[in-house]
């Protein structure tokens, strides 16, 4: 019997179209896989077996009637718990939203439902997407399927681990500073952060509105392109969404998969490698560049001097926006409500204070304090105002670099997956994980992470990042798909084939 969980989403779509399987069969297969391994991985915060199977049945009925709702109709998907799902819990990995069932669907979730993709469940994440390890989830960390003692990246470690451990062929993530790409890198999967405004944010519980983007989390570049094309495009409910058609992403991925890179100029960003990067990660990166050159690409070195300020800029803008976004969690209308101990007839303010004290974790509080400070009168110009100016300079560096190169490349993350707990007490070390991914969010440009191999030191996956100018998302698919193909030819299959099977893992 075919193990459908090993198939890509594109393969599943074909199998459904050819009548080789049913949505119920493959949805059940993924639910079974979750039952077998998620006790050890903890990719999901909530599994909706009943709902997913009901959607699968409806999908099969559409197929039988000859009217599938989309190419991916019937292919199941996991959704990061930061996206509002009507009737399904949405906690954002926080205690403060424990028990909240949204009365509405995020636009992308609505799109999934209309297109017929059964929603398997909601995936784990760092609380309110603040973190690079998923250890800041209030509901316990997710474990990396390559080594259960290690982090799966973050904040979208749940989505990446679900896909890497074959619990879902597809997942949706969100990327504010690397939360899709860095987990992709450390779990040997593919993740894409689209151009800012390319995918609706309506229903995405905002971390930092000017940086957040919803994007695909998959095992192949083509699958990402399929999912991206499905959820992307203009949404009148998101004023920042771009009102123009997406480029043809699937075609770009298919073009890349021919392995021909002639005519493509690849810019290696000087500031995004070297010191601070693990030797094994750098070695895989350099080999990948060589492969692309052999396939016909032209390589140029580019310098983006302001990128060294990207991390500082990010940690002013993000907390500022987040501190305001998170103010709404006050126990008045939904979510957790905590009455202060020993206070008779507490006031609304006292309940707000007690709830926010109990409901938010330390990292969230840290960033609320940072952001509140950065926006305070007297400090605004020096911090938030200054950060916005640097942000403009970073965008200019990108423009200059893209005048010389069609895409920019770098390692996705400076290291492979570190041990759970290793950096928990050192926020700055944790923040450094996103060094290479943050500039794209500040400038709103698209980026992809594809597996580049295993680092020699620890045998763990490393990621290769491709960045393109805003609106040119097709370029990251072309280059990503080319590298994926060239590496698969070397390895004799996808990198994930080398991951532990997790068969018989302890629950």
């Amino acid at each position, binding site marked *: 019997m075919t193990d459908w969980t090993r198939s890509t989403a594109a393969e599943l779509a074909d199998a459904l179209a050819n009548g080789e399987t049913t949505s119920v069969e493959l949805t059940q297969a993924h639910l079974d896989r979750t039952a077998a391994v998620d006790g050890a991985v903890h990719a999901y915060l909530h599994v909706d077996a009943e709902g997913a199977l009901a959607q699968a049945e409806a999908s099969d009925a559409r197929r039988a009637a000859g009217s599938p709702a989309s190419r991916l109709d019937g292919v199941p998907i996991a959704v990061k718990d930061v*996206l*509002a799902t009507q009737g399904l819990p*949405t906690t*954002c990995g926080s205690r403060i*939203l424990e028990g*909240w069932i*949204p*009365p*509405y669907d*995020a636009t992308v979730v609505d799109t999934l439902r209309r297109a017929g993709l059964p929603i398997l469940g909601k995936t784990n994440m760092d609380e309110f997407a603040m973190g690079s390890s998923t250890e800041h989830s209030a509901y316990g960390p997710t474990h990396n399927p390559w080594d259960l003692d290690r982090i799966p990246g973050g904040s979208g470690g749940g989505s990446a681990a679900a896909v890497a451990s074959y619990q879902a062929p597809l997942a949706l993530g969100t990327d504010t500073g690397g939360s899709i790409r860095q987990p992709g890198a450390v779990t040997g999967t593919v993740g894409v952060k689209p151009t800012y405004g390319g995918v609706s*944010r*309506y*229903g*995405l*519980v*905002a971390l*930092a*509105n*000017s940086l957040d983007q919803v994007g695909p989390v998959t095992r192949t570049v083509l699958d990402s392109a399929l999912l991206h094309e499905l959820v992307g495009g203009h949404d*009148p*409910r*998101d*004023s*920042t969404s771009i009102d123009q058609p997406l480029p043809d992403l699937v075609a770009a991925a298919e073009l890349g998969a021919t392995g021909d890179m002639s005519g493509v100029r690849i810019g290696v960003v000087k500031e995004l490698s070297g010191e601070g990067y693990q030797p094994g990660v750098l070695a895989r990166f350099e080999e990948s560049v060589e492969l692309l050159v052999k396939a016909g690409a032209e390589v140029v070195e580019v310098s983006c001097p302001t990128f060294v300020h990207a991390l500082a800029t990010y940690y002013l803008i993000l907390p*500022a*926006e987040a*501190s*305001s976004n998170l*103010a*709404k*969690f*006050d126990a*008045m*209308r*939904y979510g957790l409500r905590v009455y202060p101990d020993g206070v008779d007839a507490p006031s*609304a*303010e006292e309940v*707000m204070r007690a709830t926010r004290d109990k409901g938010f974790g330390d990292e969230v509080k840290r960033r609320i304090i940072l952001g*509140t400070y950065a*926006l*305070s*009168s007297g400090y*605004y110009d020096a911090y*938030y105002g200054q950060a916005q100016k640097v942000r403009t300079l970073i965008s200019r560096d990108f423009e200059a670099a893209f005048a010389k190169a069609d895409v920019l490349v770098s390692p996705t993350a400076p290291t492979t997956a570190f041990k759970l707990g290793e950096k928990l007490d050192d926020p700055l070390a944790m923040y450094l994980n996103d060094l290479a991914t943050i500039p794209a969010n500040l400038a709103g440009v698209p980026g992809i992470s594809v597996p580049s191999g295993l680092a020699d030191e620890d045998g763990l996956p490393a990621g290769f990042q491709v960045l393109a100018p805003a609106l040119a998302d097709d370029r990251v698919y072309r280059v990503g798909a080319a590298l994926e193909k060239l590496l698969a030819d070397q390895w004799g299959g996808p990198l994930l084939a080398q991951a532990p099977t997790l068969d018989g893992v302890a629950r």
Partner: protein
Amino acid sequence: MTDTLLTYDDALAAYDPVLGLEVHVELNTASKMFCGCSTVFGAEPNTQVCPVCLGLPGAMPVVNGKGVESAIRIGLALNCQIAEWCRFARKNYFYPDMPKNFQTSQYDEPIAYDGWMDVEVDGETFRVEIERAHMEEDTGKSTHVGGATGRIHGADHSLVDYNRAGIPLIEIVTKPIRGAGARAPEVARAYVAQLRDLIVALGVSEARMDQGNLRADVNLSLSTKGSDVLGTRSETKNVNSFRSVERAVRFEVQRHAAILAGGGSIVQETRHWHEDTGITTSGREKSDAEDYRYFPEPDLVPVAPTRDWVEELRATLPENPTARRARLQQEWGFSDLEMRDTVGAGALGLVEETIAAGASPQAARKWWLSELSRRANDAGVDLVDLGVTPAQVAGVQALVDAGTVNDKLARQVFDGLLAGEGTPEEVVEKRGLAVVSDEGALSAAVDNAIAANPDVADKIRDGKVAAAGALIGAVMKEMRGQADAARVRELILEKLS
């Protein structure tokens, strides 16, 4: 605690009042500022809400184009510059009736800025400079249950209605108004009254102060006479009638002056206005520590009205208030004094609408400035909030013109109208107020009066026509006032000639 006051004259002898007015106008758009929810007033609590205006996690705002249009038209009518590019900003503070714990407003980039409005006080024109007019959303409404005062302190619990949350508001802020001197209270009142007229003429709001469509905050400070230095100001919130604006300014001038004259200093604070007692009391202290942490709203794109659109909107503006007053005075044939009194009573629009409904200019003026002004004054409300419409006034006058009622009965018709007894005709019907035109009954009453007053009748027969008044009185008494006095006189003279 009762504040000590200096007399108004003493206060003015030593200090110059400096005014600042902030008026919030609730727009009458069909939907809210950032979502599609209805704005209809008076619905069941929390029925006109959605994820956006409830601030549910993940929901995002979308700007209501009609709200922007109204803001621009208000800005243009106030002779403002219209920004080529401006943004919304978040004003961050915690309050249970604010769903997101920030208000989406505008900060340093208002849609309209640098304008003016000429207001008329006792026939003289006073220019009020406008600092800015900006767009924002309203908050929800809290009701405090179980306390004696209806305020949050002492209440058992509070109920919040979010139907109002997200309704579009335009906040219009004046520059400091100096040089009004002793007339500062009247200038403040005239500004708010004429601003309301303008808003009504623009058709962008219901502009009912009693329903909170138009809310005024009155800022006041005193400068020592001859000094340019601004004093510390107080902000009296939600002063919700024209006459209250005037009274609040007067009270604050006297309160500030007493403190300053006693060597004290003014606390920068917000104050509550008490309509019943006519005083202000201390609200929360406004220190520099109050920090709204404004920053541009990242979920919205900038508003950039094209110049073509702005010019299109300019072409839709109503006539400017000064030109309008001149035109109406000429059309109506009012004397300068009549016109000044009409404007001063806040009755210009009411008189205009009454004339449009069919009354003569003098009749319309007479009702609004005498009978109805008296009633409004007794009730302590503005004329517009009295509860009588221009159409009803025109209806009453039509009944007078037709001889159905006389002036005295007409006043009783107003009693019925205020009691909600229906149209003027229905009131006349229900209360049996019509003048009796039954000649038989009238003739009998005249005969009775003649028979009961033979001496008077003789005098009239002798040609002393002036004596008829006594008989008319007797007839009217018998008819309980429901007779046309002129017709009674005619009958008496006929019978005694």
